């Protein structure tokens, strides 16, 4: 398989399907940033596998020219692990939503992070269930009134940045289509990172979201981590900042392991190479059942 870097422009990654998002949906910006990042990276679309679950956000793979797998709700991560393990040469990206990723799919996150395959996990966090028309999501703020919380939600929100850092993720970042340039750069770095990378993208749902989470509202609480002079190798500081999720919108790279070490598929490959010499021919495989007296 060729992995030679060719020259690509963003529209090489744009498919013929027309997005059916609501006019103004934040996901349009995410998609554009992604096209740009992919063009920058220059891997040909056919060497890219783009996996998603179900949700407005999870439609993204259909809008890219790569191989895509728009699977079922909540299972994009374990599916992506199968893809990457089966063919480690592929660039594997996962698109998800706050419901798809943190609610039904939340149980898969610690386990893929502790394996650390070279997969990029993008969550379009809009604090709501968009596709199913506005129910409360795990990142919805306590007290939020929605069609499924008439009298206000009674539970604390999850904190995706803090959780993934606690799980030991080696790359954690946050962006927004409110800062396209920043988002594009983050996506590029995340995809290039040689291990599991997580990007939380605060992508407004203009139809069911709260006013404060629209691009305009975001701008009031947006803080650029670079401008804060945050050192992305400082994990404890990253954790501290992550606690402000929901109040402030920090954009940039929270944490990036300066010594990422081998990824999961690196380790698997090593094992395969080590054990290969011990293989008996497949047509002799039943020899292992030759009775032996112990």
């Amino acid at each position: 398989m060729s992995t030679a870097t060719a020259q690509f422009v963003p529209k090489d990654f744009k498919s013929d399907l027309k997005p059916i998002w609501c006019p103004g949906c934040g996901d349009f910006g995410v998609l554009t940033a992604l096209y740009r990042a992919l063009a920058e990276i220059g891997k040909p679309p056919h060497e890219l596998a783009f996996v998603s679950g179900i949700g407005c956000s999870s439609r993204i793979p259909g809008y890219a020219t790569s191989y895509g797998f728009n699977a079922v709700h909540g299972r994009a991560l374990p599916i992506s692990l199968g893809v990457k393990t089966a063919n480690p040469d592929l660039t594997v990206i996962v698109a998800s939503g706050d419901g798809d990723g943190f609610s039904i799919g939340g149980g898969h996150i610690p386990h893929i992070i502790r394996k650390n395959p070279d997969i990029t996990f993008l969550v379009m966090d809009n604090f709501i269930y968009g596709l199913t028309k506005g129910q409360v999501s795990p990142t919805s703020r306590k007290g939020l009134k929605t069609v499924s919380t008439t009298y206000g939600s009674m539970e604390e929100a999850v904190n995706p940045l803090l959780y993934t850092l606690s799980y030991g993720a080696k790359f954690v970042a946050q962006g927004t289509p409110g800062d396209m340039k920043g988002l594009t750069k983050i996506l590029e770095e995340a995809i290039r990172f040689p291990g599991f990378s997580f990007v939380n993208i605060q992508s407004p749902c203009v139809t069911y979201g709260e006013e404060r989470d629209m691009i305009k509202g975001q701008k009031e609480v947006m803080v650029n981590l670079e401008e804060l002079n945050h050192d992305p190798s400082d994990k404890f500081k990253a954790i501290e900042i992550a606690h402000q999720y929901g109040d402030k919108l920090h954009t940039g790279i929270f944490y990036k392991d300066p010594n990422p070490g081998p990824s999961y598929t690196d380790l698997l490959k090593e094992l395969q190479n080590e054990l290969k010499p011990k293989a008996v021919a497949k047509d002799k495989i039943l020899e292992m059942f030759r009775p032996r007296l112990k």
Partner: protein
Amino acid sequence: MNKNLIIGMAGAGGDGVVSAGDSLITALAIDGYHALLTKSFGPQIRGGESSMKIRVSTSPVRSIGEYLDVAIALNWEDFLKFGAELPITEKTIVIYDSNTGIAPENIPVKGKPFKVLSIPIEEMAVNTAKTNRAKNTVVLGLISGWFGIAEDGIITGIRNKFTKKGPEVLKGNEDAFYEGVKYAKENPISDKDITISKPPAGAKGKLLTDGNDICAAAAIFSGCEFFGGYPITPSSEIMQLLNREIWKYGGSMIQMEDEIAGVASVIGASFAGKKALTATSGPGMSLKSEIFGLATMAELPMVIVNVQRGGPSTGIPTKSEQADLFQAAFSAHGDVVRPILAPVDVHDMFSTTVEAFNIAEYYQTPVIILSDQELSQRKEVIDEIDVSAFKIINRQLPTEAEMENYERFKFTENHISPVSHPGMLHGNYLAAGIEHSESGAPTSSGELHAKMIEKRTRKLDPLKKRSDLFSTFGPSDAELCMISWGTVAGVAMEARDLAEAEGIKVKLLVPKLLFPVAESVYMDYFKSVKKGLVIEQNVLGQLYHIIRMFVNVPDGLKSFAKAGSNPFGEHEILKKIKEL
């Protein structure tokens, strides 16, 4: 001279009952006998009672057999816990440890066995090996001595096992074994011919394995390069063997965080172009069913092994049942047809697994193998398998011409569309659980939906003509019939032999393909039939009812169904046939 011998033995944890069974069957396999070994345990993880049942024969063995020729009780309390699994009749020779202090005429057994022998097993063990842990070695000596089998093999086994424990232990165990042999020779069972024929010359070269292990080996042979799963009794050994071996072939195995993640990783690997497998039992099947539906919809091959155990729910994890057929056929929502195969014994598991991968890849579909606890864990001495006779099928990739304006779900004559995978230039497409057009674009058109369901179901029609996936036994014009599947089919075969020996004309059909229902095969089979039984280890008569869905069955065809954990016996089936 007997052709056939069935020995059952039970004792407490630490008595080494199961390891005695393992030593014995290994020695028998090396000598060229056919044999079959089942083991059973109490609910404890360790230290509970255990039993083993072994059947030795000079010709192929198709079931563990019903009644014991020889019953060995290291203590009665534990022996009795296994009830119907170790049935004693008036033909049985009963051996038990005199240390139980019970007189032969008082043993707690219903009816009168052929012979009851109180033998100082523990005493012999302690006298020789200085430990009662050698009781099982003494018993091996007794068996070897009385029945004239496997002496060389067993003693070699003892040597291999105990050498590393030092000369004293080794010597003790050797002595314990020979003490048993000596006791047998000195106390012959003269009132019954208990010897067993020698295996035919050239009968060597057999293999010894169980259903789970051979399934895993067959998967590698079939080209499987990915396994994703989650441990569950009684299927975990499939995962475990692959964990030892698959890396050597460039494949990988991942123990995932749960069953859903397991099958999700499998569909991911399949999407990426690899043959992929998962294995589980009932509860895992229930969890995985959403992804089975996705695999049908996205037309991605995968093989799933369900090692059935007692259900519903957690049920009885350590006992065999055949009650997951309904689920296998109908579990995912929507209009889905998913092929199901069932092996009848350990030997058959090899070809069943290869067939499952071939069907999965050729038809781009998930395929379920319905194994069961007994098959998965019983040890069987099997004849060598000529693997060169098997054809390996790979999924059809698009040709270069097809890659121009490639349409992943193209309507074709046989309803199968060539499938690309990531990494293939120009093959890019969107796989999805959403209904889609030929190119893979999401749609809610009723017309397209109808055509796509037709594509996905019709493509499997040729399977219904695969009469080679059915075995028949007995005269094709018999008016009496049996149909049975899985390990129970082995018992039905024995019952049919018994019936034939009694002059009853009855035939038996054993489907390896359970679904889709091969209507014409059954219709042909039923032509001569007036009455019959569909025999299976579940309560609802699942195969019986599934056949009825698609085929008009003879009025006299009845369901003979029994809950799991209650083994069928060949005489029981024979009786039922006679009652028809």
